[in-house]
């Protein structure tokens, strides 16, 4: 298993820390004693096959769900113990870009980006306008300010969602499958924007994805989740050279291996002749 150098981890205070987190859905154990640290100002990817619990980690960090046991600390706050107004105040410091972009369909691009500002501040309209236009300029969509979400391409919608996530200058930005369903140009644009935002605003970024190819040049560190735990951590280059069968299968996209191609089923001959 590849790991990030302990010195590197120790030199930075963890901005996010998940300790011994256990989460079960119905009877299925999704996360089984997960430990994860993310240092401030870094871009970290949570990788893993579909259905392994990556989005569960995002929901735990945002406080949408609570763990059965263990602790989740973000910037010194115990997120798993927050509720009501305290949880809302915490969420105001987050920017989240969801998989479907999740723009409100009855509002224009401008209204979507302005929504969190209007709800949480009493800034005058000219200031809100300037703020929104600045964020849209940063994602290259100032010209689309009057468009409706249905008029945007998938890539444009993600960029608007990114502008909305950044409009209150969050300390932490979470991206849930930011490249899913995008063409290579749009995916590369979003990837560059994530890195650019991280460097320009000095935010901490967590990217939940299964897209191994997009990781090069984007992230500082990746954690691969398999079996409810971190199976490997390191830079994309480290992980590519990892020799454990599970990591090799995931990084090289092999259809069969420790994660079997076939879903458990009775014997084929018995099934066909039954």
């Amino acid at each position: 298993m590849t790991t990030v150098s302990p010195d590197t981890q120790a030199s930075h205070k963890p901005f996010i820390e998940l300790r011994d987190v256990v989460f079960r859905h119905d009877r299925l154990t999704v996360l089984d004693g997960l430990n994860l640290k993310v240092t401030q100002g870094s871009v970290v990817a949570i990788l893993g096959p579909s259905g392994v619990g990556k989005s569960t980690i995002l929901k735990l960090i945002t406080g949408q769900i609570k763990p059965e046991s263990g602790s989740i600390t973000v910037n010194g706050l115990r997120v798993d113990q927050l509720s009501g107004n305290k949880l809302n105040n915490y969420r105001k410091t987050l920017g989240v870009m969801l998989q479907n972009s999740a723009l409100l369909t009855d509002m224009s691009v401008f209204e979507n980006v302005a929504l969190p500002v209007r709800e949480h501040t009493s800034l005058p309209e000219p200031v809100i306008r300037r703020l929104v236009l600045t964020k849209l300029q940063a994602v290259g969509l100032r010209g689309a300010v009057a468009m409706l979400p249905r008029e945007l391409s998938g890539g444009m919608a993600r960029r608007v969602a990114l502008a909305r996530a950044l409009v209150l200058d969050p300390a932490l930005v979470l991206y849930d499958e930011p490249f899913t369903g995008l063409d290579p140009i749009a995916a590369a644009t979003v990837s560059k924007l994530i890195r650019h935002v991280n460097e320009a605003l000095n935010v901490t970024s967590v990217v939940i994805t299964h897209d191994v190819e997009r990781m090069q040049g984007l992230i500082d560190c990746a954690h691969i989740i398999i079996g409810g735990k971190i199976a490997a951590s390191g830079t994309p280059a480290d992980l590519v050279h990892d020799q454990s069968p599970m990591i090799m299968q995931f990084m090289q996209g092999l259809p069969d291996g420790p994660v079997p191609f076939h879903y458990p089923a009775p014997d084929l001959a018995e099934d066909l002749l039954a």
Partner: protein
Amino acid sequence: MSNQDNEFGLNRHLLNQLSDLGSCGLFLPKILMRIRPSFKQLGQIMRQLYFVGTRSMIIILTSGFFIGLVIALQGYNTLKQFGASESLGAVVALSLFRELGPVLTALLFTGRAGTSIAAEIGLMKATEQLDALELMAIDPIERVVLPRFIAAIIAVPLLTAMFNLLAVTGAYLFAVDWVGLDAGLFWGRMISAVDLGPDYLSGFYKSIVFGVVIALVSVFQGYNAEPTGRGVAVATTQTVIVSSILILILDFILTALLI
């Protein structure tokens, strides 16, 4: 499947329906707790009032006009046999104000606006828009559910009044311009037969109760829809079924209480 299995399935289905009704009732205080007198909330309610109210006017007004014509036609043919055709105005007004106006408007509103509210909220859930609001520290019940709920309650009594107006107009056109009844007699009998309290206001109270039922069922079904295409379809269908049944049951209960 054995009879016992059938019975078990039926009981479970009935139990699920009752449990849904209970959850729906518990959803009401959650919505009411979010009412805050503010211009922002008022603006959101007005916006929804346009979508659920103004946009329902065409179907309500058209239906009202033709139902007025049909009641007048049927009523005239029956009354004529007893030599009481001059009472047509009274018969039309009483049947409209007491029963048909509130009930038909509520059923039409369920089909036009209730389904639209349930589908819209269900789709917002399926496309993670409600999650996005929650993650922006914006309460989805306050921002999405409450304005639609209040707008529907305001819209139903207003639309009922418009339905009644157009139905009476339709009946008047039939009675006076088609079969040649005296206009003064038509209005005179109507005015003398209709009491504001037991006739018109009882229909008005009914329409408020129906408005609350439709609004609550629609937002509940949408908000609790399974976040899939099928889930949205089920929520929409359930809105029509549950609202329609509740409207008809409550109509009987309210009539018994108000008569």
